[in-house]
């Protein structure tokens, strides 16, 4: 007994009914937050500790053993002082006396009750359903019975051509049985696949030896003594045949009913708890009938939906746990789900409305010979559905487009070929995770191999993309390998993991999204971090490295000259005004307006290099000079000796304006691009933004300054200037969109300023212009800047107001709030 519980008196009692994945996950989350709050009792109808139900198919197929799919061994329950009742089915909940009673008479009192009874298989109400050899496919006992039957019998019939049925059929076939799949629909998995993909799947499974009877309605199961038709009563003994509506029969020694599942609500209903398509729960996972009783998992109906995938159930578990732990924070607001299934080594993915038809546009690619089929369904310039067969690596990308409702007009011609074809890098040509060797690198940013990821998934029991990111860092940086990592999860942990919360919170300090926070700061006129923490009920006293820099930026961009910049809410580079290097030294990049320099600047740089023994001098990609390996204590001296302005090469701010030599020297030049670049750079210097910002100006369409991959690119033509926006030369090379054509240099400044101010005040922190424009749509940006003349001028004026008198942090330390103590000895 620890000190705290002594003061709190006797512990409260928590009872969990249902020893499955959702319920036990909730307990795990609860124990992390409040290990000593409850005496916990768990009832499980099966004789096993919590196991990974999704992996029953590999067990049936002989690829894994029961022991390998156990998630929480018996020791786990003992170590956490959990009373575990195995093989005991709870038959009654006495809500007045607050106790549950099992079929053998075992009782347990509760202060809070968690019902996680999962689902039950749907058994067709036909004659013969109770014969020996007729089973469902739901648990370890069913699996063992199938394995056993495969050693004694020859003919198996699986009723139901959905995911579960096909996995059962595949497993039985691998164990040597002749298997026929009977399916009432005209094609397989009709809820996840369209007819073409369903047909491809059938052909592929037929080639492996499965037989199919589609569009077939089962009328009865015929029995007999030992499965033999010897004239005795056909309604008793073991099943021997399946009979169809048309009177035909096929032999069957084993019948697996896989025609669907239903939420298991019988116990809750008998206790008078409101059920409708499941046990009805609120956003806190509390039943609407009894606030002491919670429900999570396949048995629970949240906003009318009972989820059957593991990721939403785990999200529910996490929220439920915070309420059980009496933190009272977090709400479950539903999940978007996609289906990305692995059926016997065949890749399938579907999401959204993939049937299409009237009012929808379809893009279809079909290569039946190679076994690849892709169908994308578009409505109102948005992707609304996707159905992929054979090559599913882009499933997660399509799912993201679909969820975000991004306009796809600009990428429509490349949409079908996947994310890697949008940019120049992606998943290094790999599109089949299963075929990769363990040593192959999956995540190039963080150097994580397939073997490392698979090992972490197995050893640490990971289920979601987020968990893999946290444990291995794979897909945690640029995200271009997300599809591959999801496939590895699927192969290694089984099942389906593509589910995400509908709204993404900034970080764990709040439930609010970036947009919510921006709106609140604008509408409520919040001008300090403390006022944000208070007004928005921040969960932490001073945020975290994710939210604090974001909040600081939102404050200073929404309320310039009013909100105070907080250096301690900036990462080290923006606090030290230099770039930290891997060895703890810094780099210094002075500003060279438009990339132009002169002999005295170069001389001063050379002298500083000698004086401070700076080891490396390098020309950057942005036409400037980088001094690498400067000691932090030397920074102030280097800045002073060089006597050039800060290049902000370390900041989420305007970096460089790259230029070509232009009409002043170049025999091809049509415009003075160098002067234009210098003017732009002087107008925008010191401009903080959600992320770094790069401009370029070329003097003619040959575009030597590479203006097509910059946040704003200006290209001189004979009649004036072309303006391009939202290009990117980073992780994914994105070509900038043509925005408008302008006549004068003043116009270039005004339009560029308006675009920047729109981005600065609407962009989410760490969102580059390319992502901002993708989110809001280029049409919206055009409407705000090209169509709305007054609005454009107002934006430009706002930006000029914000930038007026911005200090240079290398010289005006006081004004820029640079803490000089960091450069001085104590």
């Amino acid at each position, binding site marked *: 007994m620890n000190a705290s519980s002594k003061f709190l008196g006797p512990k409260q009692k928590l009872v969990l009914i249902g020893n499955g994945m959702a319920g036990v996950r909730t307990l795990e989350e609860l124990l992390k937050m409040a290990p000593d709050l409850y005496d916990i009792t768990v009832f499980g109808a099966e004789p096993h500790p919590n196991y990974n139900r999704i992996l029953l198919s590999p067990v049936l197929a002989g690829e894994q053993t029961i022991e390998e799919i156990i998630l929480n061994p018996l020791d786990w329950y003992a170590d956490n002082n959990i009373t575990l009742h195995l093989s005991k089915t709870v038959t009654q909940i006495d809500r007045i006396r607050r106790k549950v009673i099992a079929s053998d008479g075992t009782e347990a009192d509760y202060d809070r009750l968690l019902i996680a009874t999962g689902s039950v298989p749907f058994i067709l109400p036909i004659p013969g359903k109770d014969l020996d050899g007729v089973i469902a496919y739901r648990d370890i006992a069913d699996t063992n019975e199938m394995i056993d039957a495969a050693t004694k019998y020859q003919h198996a019939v699986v009723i139901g051509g959905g995911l579960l049925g096909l996995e059962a059929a595949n497993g039985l076939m691998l164990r040597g049985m002749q298997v026929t799949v009977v399916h009432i629909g005209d094609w397989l998995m009709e809820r996840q696949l369209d007819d073409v993909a369903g047909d491809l799947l059938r052909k592929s499974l037929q080639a492996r030896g499965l037989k199919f009877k589609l569009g077939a309605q089962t009328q009865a199961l015929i029995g007999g003594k030992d499965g033999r038709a010897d004239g005795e009563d056909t309604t008793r003994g073991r099943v021997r045949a399946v009979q169809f509506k048309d009177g035909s029969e096929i032999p069957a020694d084993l019948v697996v009913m896989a025609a669907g599942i239903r939420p298991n609500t019988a116990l809750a209903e008998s206790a008078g708890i409101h059920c409708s398509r499941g046990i009805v729960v609120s956003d806190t996972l509390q039943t609407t009938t009894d606030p002491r009783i919670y429900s999570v998992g396949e048995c629970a109906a949240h906003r009318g939906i009972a989820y059957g995938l593991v990721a939403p159930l785990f999200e529910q578990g996490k929220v439920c746990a915070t309420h059980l732990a009496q933190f009272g924070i977090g709400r479950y607001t539903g999940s978007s789900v996609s289906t990305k299934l692995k059926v016997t080594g065949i890749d399938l993915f579907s999401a959204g409305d993939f049937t299409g038809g009237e009012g929808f546009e379809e893009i279809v690619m079909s290569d039946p010979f190679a076994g690849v089929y892709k169908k994308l369904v578009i409505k109102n310039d948005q992707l609304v559905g996707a159905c992929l067969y054979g090559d599913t690596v882009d499933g997660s990308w399509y799912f993201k487009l679909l969820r975000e409702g991004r306009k796809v007009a600009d990428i429509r011609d490349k949409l079908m070929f996947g994310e890697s074809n949008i940019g120049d890098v992606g998943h290094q040509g790999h599109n089949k995770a299963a075929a990769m060797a363990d040593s192959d690198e999956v995540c190039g940013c963080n150097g994580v191999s397939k073997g490392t990821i698979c090992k972490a998934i197995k050893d640490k029991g990971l289920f979601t993309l987020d968990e893999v990111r*946290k444990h291995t860092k794979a897909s945690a940086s640029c995200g271009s390998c997300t599809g591959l990592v999801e496939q590895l999860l699927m192969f290694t942990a089984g099942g389906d993991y593509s589910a995400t919360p509908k709204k993404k919170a900034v970080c764990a300090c709040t439930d609010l999204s970036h947009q919510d926070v921006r709106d609140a700061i604008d509408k409520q006129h919040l001008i300090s971090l403390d006022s944000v923490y208070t007004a928005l009920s921040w969960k932490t006293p001073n945020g975290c490295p994710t939210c604090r820099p974001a909040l600081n930026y939102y404050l200073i961009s929404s309320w310039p000259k009013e909100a105070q910049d907080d250096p301690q809410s900036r*990462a080290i580079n923006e606090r030290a005004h230099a770039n*930290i290097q891997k*060895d703890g030294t810094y780099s210094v990049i002075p500003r060279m307006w438009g990339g132009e320099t002169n002999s005295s600047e170069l001389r001063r740089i050379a002298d500083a290099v000698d004086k401070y023994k700076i080891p490396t001098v390098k020309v950057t990609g942005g036409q400037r000079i980088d001094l690498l390996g400067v000691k932090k204590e030397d920074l102030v001296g280097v800045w002073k000796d060089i006597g050039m302005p800060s290049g902000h090469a370390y900041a989420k701010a305007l970096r460089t304006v790259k230029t070509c030599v232009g009409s002043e020297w170049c025999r091809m030049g049509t415009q003075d691009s160098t002067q234009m670049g210098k003017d732009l750079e002087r107008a925008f210097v010191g401009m903080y933004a959600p992320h770094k910002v790069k401009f370029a100006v070329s003097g003619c369409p040959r575009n030597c300054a590479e203006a097509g991959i910059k946040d704003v690119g200006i290209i001189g033509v004979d009649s004036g200037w072309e303006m391009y926006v939202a290009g990117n030369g980073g992780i994914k090379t994105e070509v900038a969109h043509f925005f408008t054509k302008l006549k004068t240099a003043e116009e270039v400044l005004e339009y560029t300023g308006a675009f920047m101010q729109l981005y600065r005040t609407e962009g989410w922190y760490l969102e580059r212009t390319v992502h901002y424009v993708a989110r809001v749509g280029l049409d919206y940006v055009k409407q705000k800047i090209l169509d709305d003349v007054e609005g454009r001028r107002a934006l430009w004026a706002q930006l000029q107001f914000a930038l007026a008198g911005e200090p240079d942090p290398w010289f005006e330390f006081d004004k820029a709030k640079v*803490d000089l103590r960091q450069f001085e*000895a104590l």
Partner: protein
Amino acid sequence: MKEWKNICALTDIPVLGSRRVQRSQGPQVALFRTADDAVFALLDRCPHKGGPLSQGIVFGNKVACPLHNWTIALDNGQAHAPDEGCTAKFSVKVEAGQVMLCEGELASIGLEFEPIKAGPCTRSC
């Protein structure tokens, strides 16, 4: 009996910031000050890739390493799960606005690593 050594005034350390303490050998020691004026001392070395923790963002009772954003608890030096690792901690005493470290610990803890470049320190200790 611990021999305490005066290092600096509490106000020498920025709120939600840090200062560094030089030793005759081994990596420097980072002093952190939280929002509620608690002071903690850790070896200025992230258990991940040796990043200087003194340059990180301080939040709550934690610091985020400036190199790869590992979160280290200030009170015990433990990396935040699922990351694994621990950096050495030092005892700190704040009396009458003076921050003090223990001489014996300064002379003995974490000497197996090289000193770390991350900016100026106390002149010597």
